[in-house]
């Protein structure tokens, strides 16, 4: 498949250990702990992951966490609200920099 993203590659994620096992092991062990039931529920963490996947625009993570949130009993509405939160932060984080632009404009103009 001649494209940068191949859905089949998601299944090969665990193979990253091929090039550096100790670091990969550390990552996956930490990753597992991050998503375990804790002060936040595994379901809440999955919704956060889904939102972040959209913010960082990772198609692998979007696929993986669309399925994971479904499996954890989230509704379509909850999933879309999570994506809107990501979008709002993305939009807001651009817009808040407008203050810098405004400062600069005010500094430069009479």
């Amino acid at each position: 498949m001649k494209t940068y993203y191949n859905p089949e590659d998601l299944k090969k994620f665990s193979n990253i250990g091929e090039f550096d096992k100790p670091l990969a092991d550390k990552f996956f062990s930490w990753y597992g702990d991050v998503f375990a039931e804790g002060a936040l529920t595994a379901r809440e963490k999955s919704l956060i992951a889904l939102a972040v996947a959209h913010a960082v625009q990772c198609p692998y993570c979007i696929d993986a966490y669309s399925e994971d949130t479904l499996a954890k009993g989230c509704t379509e509405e909850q999933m879309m609200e999570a994506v809107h939160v990501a979008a709002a932060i993305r939009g807001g984080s651009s817009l808040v920099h407008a203050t810098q632009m405004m400062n600069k404009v005010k500094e430069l103009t009479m």
Partner: protein
Amino acid sequence: MKSLLAQHHELSQSGRQLQLLDEVVQSAAITPFKEKLKTLGFYPLKPTGIDILQINVGKLCNQTCKHCHVDAGPDRKEIMSRETLEQCLEAVRTSGISTVDITGGAPELNPHFRWFVKECTQLGVKVMNRCNLTVIFSNKKYNDLPEFFAEHKIEVVSSLPFYNADRTDRQRGEGVFAASVKAMKLLNAVGYGKAASGLILNLVYNPTGAFLSSGQQVLEAQFKKVLHEEFDVVFNHLFTITNMPISRFLDFLITSGNYESYLEKLLAAFNPATVNGLMCRNTLSVSWDGYLYDCDFNQMLDLKIGEGDAMHIKNLDLNYLNRREIIVSQHCYGCTAGAGSSCGGEVVK
């Protein structure tokens, strides 16, 4: 929606289903289930005893759910006769079986259903009935089923694929969620699902698509919260089960392009710890015409135990049954994925 059989669909043929499952296992380089068991030292799979008799009293149903492994529906006419039901009772009487699990179709649509339940309770065995909830409103004569269930203290197990109407109705048909909630209210009114009554109402969740469940405990808590807060209904436990890649769900997998990846998902989630608790090891399944199977899924795939009348309920041979080899094939991956799946929910507790 018509059953696959009424549509003359190729998947109404069990041989075709088995063939397709073998084909995908080959093409996706999935280890055949038998081989998987062999490498782990679990083959041949043997029974641990026969505690539960699961009786499929017919394929007639008032619903036509998209995932139904029975291919049940209003157009199915297979119904267990009084004679076969009497043979089942005799088998229970003589075998030491402790639980009778009545399934279908909609079991209540079998004209001998109430008589059979009464006979079973008189034998002192535990009786479970797999009620689809909406059957209670399918005809006036079923409106009093909650009272009947309560009177005979039978355990009610009901499918409810999700805690909202949207996802439930997409799988089970328009209006099913609302009718299910209404039925649960009636069951609650006679004591079902309430701790002090001793009347058990368990719900069964199965994913509404080509994904696996994430765990019984978490989903049970969600179901309980939403159903109680939004609809004022209660129940005892939630059993989460995996959709089996057979019959109507197989049709969905193929037409939606999820077939190969679903099988791969099941294989990837294979959990050896589930093998000890597989339901085929302590359950015997009887079809509407009285033949014996290792489980309801093998029944639908026509994988009979033994040959001819020797393996008919009227000739129950416990010695043979306890020594037999359980017939397994690729669909069995549906029982061993994750925490495992059985009629009682997760296998690994």
